[in-house]
């Protein structure tokens, strides 16, 4: 059967023949001579027949159509993934082929665009978090938090971390996965009234404690008393690691670097990146100047070229696996450079005023929702602590049932917390970003009137 030319493979039959002659073999099969015959596939792979472009479009689009998405419903889900408005410029710029189809900037002279953007991202993230240095990105918020725990172990030479149960459960699971093989003990401390129990932290911290890990705002949307927690950790010689799953909050909240956090590990999805059904997301990591050589991941630095002009390169690579091999600070290699670029464009577009304004919109709208939902008979706000854009509500029916009935009103309800916290079987985590309108919030409250 004649081979049909595929559009992604330019080699024509005539060119193949010419190339085979130049190599000095009779057929392509001869090039595979080093593969033992016993492991060669003697049949075609059992895959569906290839699709033409229109067929591919229709097939994949049909799968997309089956999913409920945030343009079709009013989304009150958060918990580590946030529906924020993304200015059109963000992906028009980050999505340009010159950025999208480039690789890690190993040849700095022809990758100044990527490198400068990463240097700007590092700066923007430092400004947002109040830290001295940030790396060029990690995988996501959970893995960045896990790497921060390992980093704290290396910095303090202590082998235990204390982590609040008010940290996102999936972040805590990632911390356990990363630390367990290294012999780091993970001690969880309880929360009380929606925030980390300060006394329990003081009791749990000892001479072996490398870090206290908190999340701010925490998984219940409550604001932690970061300064007090940092003080407790520091009194015991431990570092304070602050996970930030919702960096939009930092447009308004005092940044962790200003109240004593030593490492900020965060999720950058809210900064101009799509919900994407959970990925790709953007891991953020920032720390103090003196810890930079223990920081995992890539770093971009400014330098000069042979003519004295400013330029940028990947630097401090002696921390990294391709030089240090088994002694590296981490095995992270490819990171989330494109999403860091999108986050940089987002932060630059909003500027200080815009970041503050978006944060305030989140605060005000969530506060309004908290009030109107809290007034619906049978529903009550669970915790008195101040919140940013998420809060927990106790529901009269199981939250799963409430969600099911809300869908009839084109409302995607909050997250039932019972899956993670059996003691909160009636706990329902609602998120209100700047995307939710007053009429959507009012519609939620009105619908709840009928669901009790």
């Amino acid at each position: 059967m004649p081979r049909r030319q595929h559009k992604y493979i330019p080699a024509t039959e005539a060119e193949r023949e010419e190339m085979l002659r130049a190599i000095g073999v009779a057929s392509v099969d001869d090039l595979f001579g080093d593969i033992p015959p016993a492991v060669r596939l003697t049949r075609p792979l059992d895959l569906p027949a290839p699709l033409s472009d229109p067929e591919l479009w229709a097939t994949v689009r049909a799968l997309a159509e089956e999913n409920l998405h945030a343009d079709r419903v009013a989304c009150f889900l958060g918990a580590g993934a946030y529906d924020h408005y993304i200015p059109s410029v963000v992906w028009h710029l980050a999505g340009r082929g010159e950025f999208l189809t480039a690789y890690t900037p190993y040849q700095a002279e022809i990758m100044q665009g990527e490198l400068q953007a990463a240097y700007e991202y590092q700066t923007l993230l430092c400004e947002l978090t109040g830290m001295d240095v940030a790396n060029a990105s990690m995988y996501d918020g959970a893995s960045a938090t896990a790497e921060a725990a390992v980093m704290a172990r290396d910095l303090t030479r202590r082998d235990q971390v204390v982590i609040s149960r008010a940290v996102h459960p999936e972040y805590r699971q990632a911390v356990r996965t990363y630390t367990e093989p290294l012999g780091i003990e993970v001690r969880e401390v309880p929360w009380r009234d929606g925030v980390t129990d300060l006394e329990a932290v003081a009791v749990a911290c000892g001479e072996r404690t490398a870090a206290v890990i908190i999340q701010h705002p925490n998984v219940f949307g409550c604001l932690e008393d970061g300064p007090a927690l940092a003080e407790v950790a520091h009194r015991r010689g431990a570092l304070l690691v602050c996970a930030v799953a919702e960096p939009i909050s930092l447009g308004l909240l005092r940044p962790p670097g200003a109240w004593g956090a030593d490492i900020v590990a965060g999720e950058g999805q809210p900064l101009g990146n799509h919900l994407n059904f959970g990925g790709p997301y953007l891991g953020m990591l920032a720390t103090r100047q003196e810890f930079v050589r223990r920081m995992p991941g890539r770093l971009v630095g400014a330098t000069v070229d042979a003519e004295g002009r400013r330029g940028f390169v990947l630097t401090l690579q002696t921390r990294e696996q391709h030089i240090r091999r088994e002694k590296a600070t981490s095995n992270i290699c490819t990171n989330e450079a494109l999403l860091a670029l999108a986050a940089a464009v987002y932060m630059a577009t909003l500027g200080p005023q815009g970041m503050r304004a978006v944060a305030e919109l989140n605060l005000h709208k969530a506060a309004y929702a908290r009030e109107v939902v809290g007034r619906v008979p049978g529903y009550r706000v669970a915790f008195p602590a101040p919140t940013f854009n998420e809060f927990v509500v106790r529901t009269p029916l199981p939250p799963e049932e409430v969600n099911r009935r809300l869908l009839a009103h084109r409302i995607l309800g909050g997250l039932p917390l019972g899956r993670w916290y059996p003691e909160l079987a009636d706990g329902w985590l609602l998120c209100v970003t700047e995307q939710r309108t007053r009429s959507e919030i009012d519609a939620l409250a009105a619908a709840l009137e009928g669901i009790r």
Partner: protein
Amino acid sequence: MSARDPRRDMPLIFELSTPGRLGCALPDPDVPVRPVAERVPAHLLRETPPALPEVSELDVVRHYTRLSHRNFSIDEGMYPLGSCTMKYNPKIHEDLARLPGFCRVHPYTPPEHVQGALRLMWELERLLAEISGMDRVTFHPAAGAHGELVGMLMIRAYFRSRGEARTRVIVPDSAHGTNPATAAMCGYQVVTVRSDARGNLDVGALRDAMDESVAALMLTNPNTLGLFEERILEIAEVVHSRGGQMYLDGANFNAMLGVTRPGDQGFDVMHMNLHKTFSTPHGGGGPGAGAVGVKAHLVPFLPVPTVERRGDGFVLDEDRPQSVGRVRAFYGNFANLVRAYAYIRSLGAAGLRQVAETAVLNANYLAARLREHFDVPYPRRCMHEFVLSGARQKRLYGVATRDMAKRILDYGFHAPTVYFPLIVEEAIMIEPTETESKRTLDEFAEALIAVAREARDTPDVVRTAPHTTPVRRLDEVRAARQPDLRWRPRRDEPVPGAGRDRP
């Protein structure tokens, strides 16, 4: 010098800042507003704004568009980076991944309302299992190295479930640096085994190193020299006979599609860099996707959740007591799974085999064109990539491989991978991929030959390269000795964020 001159100094976005300028139009709150101080305790409120730039929307557009002009990409030209597999990234995939039904979906949407997304993951898992010869595949890892971590954690959990406390992992001296780093992150001691004169793993040395304390051999095949491990079955036999596991670093999977399957070669676990082999864009270094395939005995240890078929629908299964847990939140880099799925569906079995055949043909053709002009450390048939050495140029003319890599930039190509693998002196590692045409291969070969000629005739031109790029050779030593990792507002200029919220 014109503002559009590519060699003009590029300001930082911060240097474009003008106080009071705005880049976005935000609404006023449509809800009743109370003072922020009534909502948030004073000691938790920011006192001064971050020193982000104050720029207009057009400032932002021009700045990042100009930066994009200072970037080399696949869309612009050939990117022959060995072991990185820089092939064409189909445009239709970008449109598909950005359909609202994918990019606007919240990960905690109840599974019954995301059946399309779950079906895509379930089907992609079956497609990759067939292509790799593995039994199941997880999509949690965000990149190849992350996949290594998941794979090795599963191996560790497997031995633990059998009550075996193995402590060592064998890695060849040609391996990617991520392999030993991963083994160390899993608490293993790394044992390095040398390669033999043909560029294969030295089976004798492997036999000597292998005992019941070894959990796994981490092998890249085709290896980082671009060579297929000729004695792969014997290697697997040595490792398995002592109860060890075979881990495949799948960075070089491009060469095997439809030709041979790792699962049939004796591998128990492998990661697949979907961003390489299955053509999702690299994005300047991520997002990637490092799917991991396992044989049946390792299935209980897969990260949670897995996607399972129940009746007519698909569910997320969290109830897996022996799972290694999670290495990140949610389910992996889903948007890249959409692209990889589209890639496989558009090529089918015959197309994928053509990918491998053409990648190998292109590499062998380039190697044939270049072999007289450089040293060839392992004169064998290569797979989809090959390694040359610039040792001759270094010895005779004092021109290092680094210099030749910089010079090739002046000819409009990205440089090959250099100084890797570590076992080849002055290594030059070239991977053309199947999406480059013969014409482009010829142009690249002629450019590289011209550089070799220049190294002999006008070595200074090469030593001081590049000459035509937006910046000249950069001082990497200075960057490392005097780290400048962020811009700082100048002390004599008032900046918005100069209060106590700044470090």
